[in-house]
C-alpha cells in the first residue's frame, strides 16, 4: 500500500546518494529533451513526490512487457524508482492471488480515488468475454472499473496501445486497444513489443515531476521517445544513402554492418527510441545486433508484410498476382481479338459494292 515516505526519503533509505539521485535527474532531463535548468526542478519535485499508487492490469498479453521492465538491470536508479512506486496490484509480480489480490486492487482504487496511475498491458477481447478473465472478472469489466478513478492510464506495450498480436488478422478474440474502450481519461501509449524499460521510467518521472502527461504524438505516444524514426537515428543510415546493403545475414555486407533494408528492416516506418536509448543497459539494439527492425512499436505491425521483406514490397504475393493477371489478360485479350475479328469479317461480308448504274439512280 502507498506509504507516507517521500521518494527522496525512500531512495536515501535504500542507500542511493544525493549525487546518484541528481545524476538520474540529469539523465531524465536530457532523455526527455528538457533544458538543463529543469534538473533542479525535477530533483525537487521527485524529492517531495509521494509514492504514487500504481495498479497494473495484465490482459491478453505474454508477460514480455513485465519481463522487459524487471530486466532493467539492478541496482540502477531507474529500477529503484520502480521499486518505490507503490505497485499495489500486479498479478504476475504480487504474492497474493485470487480474492486477496482482487481485494488489494479494490482497496488501492478506493484509497487513492482519482490519483492512482493505471498501467495496462495486453489487449482487451471484445468478443466472447471468456477469452480472458481474471478471478472470474472479464478484462473489459476490470478495465472499465479500474479506469474510473484513475488519474491517467499508461498503456504499456503494443497490445495495450494498439491491439498488438491478438488484433492481427483474423483477430479471433475481437481484440482492441485500451484507447478503443476508455475515452474520458488521459492515455499514454508506450508501444513496443516489448517497450524499452527506460521509456516507462521516463514517463513515470515526467508524471511525478510535472503532474501532467508528456507531449504525445498522434498515436498517443510520448514525443520525446517516439518523435523520431529508427531510420533517422540509425547508425547504419550512411550505408543506406550510399546504396550499400547486406543481401543475406552472413554475406560480406552483413559482416561490414551495411544497411538491412533489403533484409526487411522496417526502420523507415518505425518511431521508437531503440537507436538512441538501446537495450540491456545500452549494450545493443536489434539493428546493431544484425537484424532488421520489425516495426514493433507501430500499430498493426504484425500485418505489415513479411518481417524479411523490404518495406517497398506489397503485403500480398506479387508474383502470383502478376501471373494471374497475365493469364486473365490473355483470356480476355483472346476474347477481344475474336470479337474484333468477327467485326472485321462481318464488315467485309457486308461490304456492299456499288455499280455505275447505282450511282446514276436518282432516289
Amino acid at each position, binding site marked *: 500500500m502507498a506509504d507516507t515516505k517521500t521518494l527522496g526519503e525512500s531512495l536515501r533509505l535504500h542507500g542511493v546518494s544525493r549525487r546518484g539521485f541528481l545524476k538520474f535527474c540529469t539523465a531524465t532531463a536530457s532523455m526527455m529533451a528538457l533544458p538543463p535548468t529543469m534538473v533542479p526542478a525535477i530533483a525537487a519535485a521527485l524529492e517531495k513526490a509521494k509514492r504514487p499508487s500504481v495498479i497494473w492490469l495484465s490482459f491478453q498479453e505474454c508477460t514480455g512487457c513485465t519481463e522487459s521492465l524487471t530486466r532493467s538491470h539492478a541496482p540502477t536508479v531507474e529500477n529503484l524508482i520502480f521499486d518505490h512506486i507503490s505497485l499495489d496490484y500486479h498479478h504476475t509480480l504480487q504474492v497474493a492471488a485470487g480474492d486477496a489480490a482482487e481485494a488489494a486492487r479494490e482497496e488501492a482504487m478506493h484509497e487513492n480515488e482519482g490519483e492512482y496511475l493505471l498501467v495496462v498491458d495486453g489487449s482487451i477481447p471484445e468478443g466472447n468475454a471468456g477469452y480472458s478473465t481474471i478471478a472470474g472478472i472479464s478484462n473489459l469489466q476490470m478495465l472499465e472499473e479500474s479506469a474510473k478513478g484513475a488519474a491517467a492510464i499508461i498503456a504499456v506495450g503494443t497490445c495495450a496501445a494498439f491491439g498488438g498480436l491478438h488484433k492481427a488478422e483474423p483477430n479471433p478474440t475481437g481484440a482492441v486497444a485500451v484507447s478503443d474502450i476508455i475515452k474520458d481519461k488521459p492515455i499514454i501509449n508506450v508501444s513496443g513489443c516489448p517497450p524499452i524499460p527506460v521509456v516507462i521510467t521516463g514517463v513515470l518521472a515526467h508524471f511525478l515531476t510535472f503532474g501532467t502527461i508528456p507531449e504525445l504524438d498522434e498515436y498517443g505516444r510520448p514525443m520525446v521517445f517516439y518523435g523520431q524514426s529508427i531510420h533517422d537515428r540509425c547508425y547504419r543510415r550512411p550505408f543506406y544513402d550510399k546504396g550499400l546493403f547486406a543481401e543475406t545475414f552472413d554475406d560480406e555486407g552483413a559482416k561490414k554492418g551495411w544497411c538491412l533494408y533489403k533484409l526487411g528492416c522496417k526502420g523507415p516506418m518505425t518511431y521508437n527510441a531503440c537507436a538512441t536509448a538501446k537495450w540491456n543497459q545500452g549494450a545493443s539494439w536489434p539493428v546493431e545486433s544484425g537484424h532488421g527492425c520489425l516495426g514493433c512499436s507501430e500499430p498493426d505491425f504484425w500485418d505489415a508484410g513479411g518481417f524479411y521483406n*523490404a518495406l517497398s514490397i*506489397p503485403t500480398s504475393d506479387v508474383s502470383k498476382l502478376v501471373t494471374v493477371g497475365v493469364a486473365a489478360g490473355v483470356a480476355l485479350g483472346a476474347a477481344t481479338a475474336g470479337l474484333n475479328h468477327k467485326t472485321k469479317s462481318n464488315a467485309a461480308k457486308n461490304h456492299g459494292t456499288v455499280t455505275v448504274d447505282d450511282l446514276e439512280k436518282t432516289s
Partner: protein
Amino acid sequence: MSEPMDFLLWVRGPAFDVAALIFVIGVVVRFFEIFSLGRKANFSEPRGTEFGPGMKSVLTRSLPEPGMFKRQPLTILVGYVFHIGLLISLILFVPHIELFRETFGFGWPGLPNPLVDAAAVLSIVALLAALWHRISSPVMRILTTNEDWLVWALTFLPMLTGYIAYHRMIDPYPLALGLHILSIEALMIFFPFTKLMHAFTLFIARWYNGAMSGRRVVES
C-alpha cells in the same frame, strides 16, 4: 486512431492488388488487340529488308532530328531530362528494385540515393516546365486535351510524393509512403487506357515505321 498505418496497409495490400491486376490485364489486352488485328497483307514485292531498318528507326527516332532543337529547344530538353530522370528514379532506386525482384525473381544493382534524388529533382523540374509550356503556349493549349492534363498529373504525383517520402517531409512516414504508393496505383489503373501506354508501344511503333520504309527502301 491508427489511420496512417491502416492507410499504408491498405495501399500495400488490397489497393495494390486491384491496381496491379487492372494494370497487367489492361496491358496484355491492349497488346492482344494491337497484334491480333494485324495489318493487311502487303502483296507488293519487297525491295529491301524490314528488320534492320526497323531497328535503325528505333534508334534514330530516339535521337532529336537535326534542326529540331533550334525550333523547339524546350520540348526536346524537357523531354529528355524528364524521361531519363524518371527511368533512373524508377529502375535504379533500391526500394523499387526490391519490388521488381519480388515480382520477377531477379534484380539488379541500384544507384546511391543522392544520385537518384538528383535525377528525381531534375525530372520534377522538367515536368513543371512541361506544364508551364502547355499553359503558356497558345499552340500547345489548342493541342492539349483533357487526357493530357490527366496524364501529366498521374505522372507528376508519383514523382512529387516519392520525393516527399524519401525526404520524409510529411509526418508520420507511413502517411508519406502511403500517398506515394497510392499515386502509383492511380497511375497503374489509368496506364493501359491512356497515352501512357506509349511506354510499351513506342518501340514497336518505331520499329514498324522503320520496317515499312525499309521494305520500300525509302528513308524512315
